[in-house]
């Protein structure tokens, strides 16, 4: 059955009117298409449990910046400090308050509060610790969300459904890592160059890093991992031969606030 776009929309619209909309319309006009789209692509990357190791010995300031920039670029994360319309004046305090960040760098004592002491090595003090969603095994954000807009996948990725989120920000109160951002205003006027393959967000919803689930589905590694030059190791904890398991075996690693029982899955080599 051949059918052009215009006809398809017309028939789908009419059938919606008589209650045949949604999946029914798809099934009648393009049988099998809905299911086909739900199946993973053949080259998709899959894992039992995704995890990341941040090797701070290899990560310098420039690499950290590269990781942050690429992530925010591919995910249409706005830079509130640089509005597209130069007439819009942003107060630095507002930029700070409304900032959206999926991945960012911070000092040792901010990344690991309580771990710092007076005599910490200068080397560690100066490190730009890359911080992102920890994709916890026991995520408090998922526990508190009243609509399951944030949920944990089988492979451990903590996802956000930004179309279901009601913007109550309970997850932000629940997250012990400050890894969640809320759109306090429309982010679109602050996206320099929109990536058309990834959705932009509206005001009023929460967002965060999701280990580039959309890239894994296409067989690509997370954007930050690709540009990190080996400083970020990403892989499957369920596979004993994976690079991430080997790295964890060969190095002493720490995690952020493990005492809270959230079981974070981003590990740091210091």
């Amino acid at each position, binding site marked *: 059955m051949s059918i052009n776009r215009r006809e398809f929309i017309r028939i789908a619209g009419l059938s919606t009117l008589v209650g045949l909309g949604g999946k029914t319309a798809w099934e009648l006009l393009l049988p099998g298409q809905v299911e086909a789209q739900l199946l993973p692509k053949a080259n998709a990357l899959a894992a039992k449990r995704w995890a990341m190791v941040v090797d701070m010995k290899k990560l310098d300031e420039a690499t950290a910046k590269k990781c942050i920039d690429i992530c925010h670029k591919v995910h249409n994360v706005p830079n509130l400090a640089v509005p597209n319309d130069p007439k819009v004046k942003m107060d630095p305090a*507002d930029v*700070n*308050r*409304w*900032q*959206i960040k999926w991945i960012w760098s*911070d000092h040792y*004592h*901010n*990344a690991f*509060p*309580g771990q710092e002491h007076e005599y910490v090595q200068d080397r560690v003090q100066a490190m730009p610790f890359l*911080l992102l969603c920890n994709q916890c095994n026991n995520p*408090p954000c998922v*526990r*508190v*969300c*009243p*609509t*399951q*807009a944030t949920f944990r996948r089988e492979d451990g990725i903590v996802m956000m459904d930004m179309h*279901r*989120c*009601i*913007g*109550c*920000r*309970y997850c*932000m*109160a*629940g*997250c*012990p*890592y*400050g890894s*969640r*951002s*809320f*759109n*306090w*205003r*429309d982010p679109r006027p602050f996206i320099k160059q929109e990536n058309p393959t990834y959705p932009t967000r*509206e*005001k*009023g*919803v*929460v967002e965060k890093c999701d280990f580039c689930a959309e890239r894994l589905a296409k067989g690509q590694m997370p954007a930050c991992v690709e540009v990190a030059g080996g400083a970020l190791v990403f892989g499957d904890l369920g596979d004993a031969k994976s690079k991430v398991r080997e790295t964890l075996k060969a190095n002493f690693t720490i995690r952020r*606030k493990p005492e*809270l*029982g*959230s079981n974070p899955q981003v590990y740091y080599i210091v």
Partner: protein
Amino acid sequence: MLEKALVGSKRYYTLLAILAAIFGVGFLFYLRQLTFGLGITGLGRDVSWGFYIAQFTYLVGVAASAVMVVLPYYLHNYKAFGRVTILGEFLAVAAVSMCMLFIVIDLGRPDRLLNVLLYPTPNSVLFWDMVVLNGYLLLNIFIGWNVLEAERNEVAPPGWIKPLIYISIPWAVSIHTVTAFLYAGLPGRGFWLTAVMAPRFLSSAFAAGPALLILLCLIVRKYTKFDPGKEQIQTLAKIVTYATIINIFLFFCEVFTVFYSQIPEHMQHFTYLFFGLHGHGKLVPFMWFSLLGMIFAALMLVNPNNRRDEKKLAVLCGLVIITTWIDKGLGLITGGFVPNPLDKITEYWPTVPETFITLGVWAAGFLILTILYKVAVSIKEEIGA
């Protein structure tokens, strides 16, 4: 019975007009918030809940406190409270209505509110809060309305209302307990991570709610022909007294655990609120006023002579309302978010639009309260109570 709300004195209409006007101004600012986003508030990524959620928390307490008149009357057959139960129940209705409005205006996407019902999530405390608040609202509307109607017709209330009344007693406790659990179960927020939060919520609620009820009783007596009664006010005053004392006691229990243990994640929030942290201390004068004012009010209220003097009692009740409001409405929420989980400090203060939206919701609540009290009082006058 609603017809009683439609006819009234000029003063009644003026009050309604003023409240409606404040609500209208708040609503205009809310329209601005709908178009711009929650950025028009003082909130941000570090302090992500503020004034709205704090008012909600405070008012859940006011709503729950209706149980302080319902319980003695229905479980202990304390007849005197029969005259004021309706005032307590209608205060609860107005307070819960405000709670719901505060939740809605705090949402980034209020248009998706029904997602909470479409995807019910029992592991979220917010889901349960929605269940208990709606249930409590309905219970109080049904109970209040039917008992008042029966009173008007000089018959006994319908039999089916009795079980609802008994259910409403633990239900009142549940709304403030569940509200405390919103905060008290979050792993990364040391200020809130305390088992004493729900008891402290209840004690401050049973201080603030009956204190407000006393003021309302005094107003009703002054401006209408219905007198809620001297004994009733005195009994409420005792409830306010001991609830305030228990609240202060629980506060110091918390202070002991936090400061004797010396665990930084728990101490730093108290330090921020009462002494300031790294040069940031916007709330310090408020917190001291709240704490010292509450202690002063409790000490004064313990003396029966001060309670018996209704003028002094009114001032002390006002002080209890203000100090508990600062405690929950300013300190509790902001204090939990400062410093943030990365040990950084961003202070919070509500903006002008945020304040007007908040005032608008309060006006809406008092509009509901005025109308309900008008109905109740008119009927009490009619039957010559």
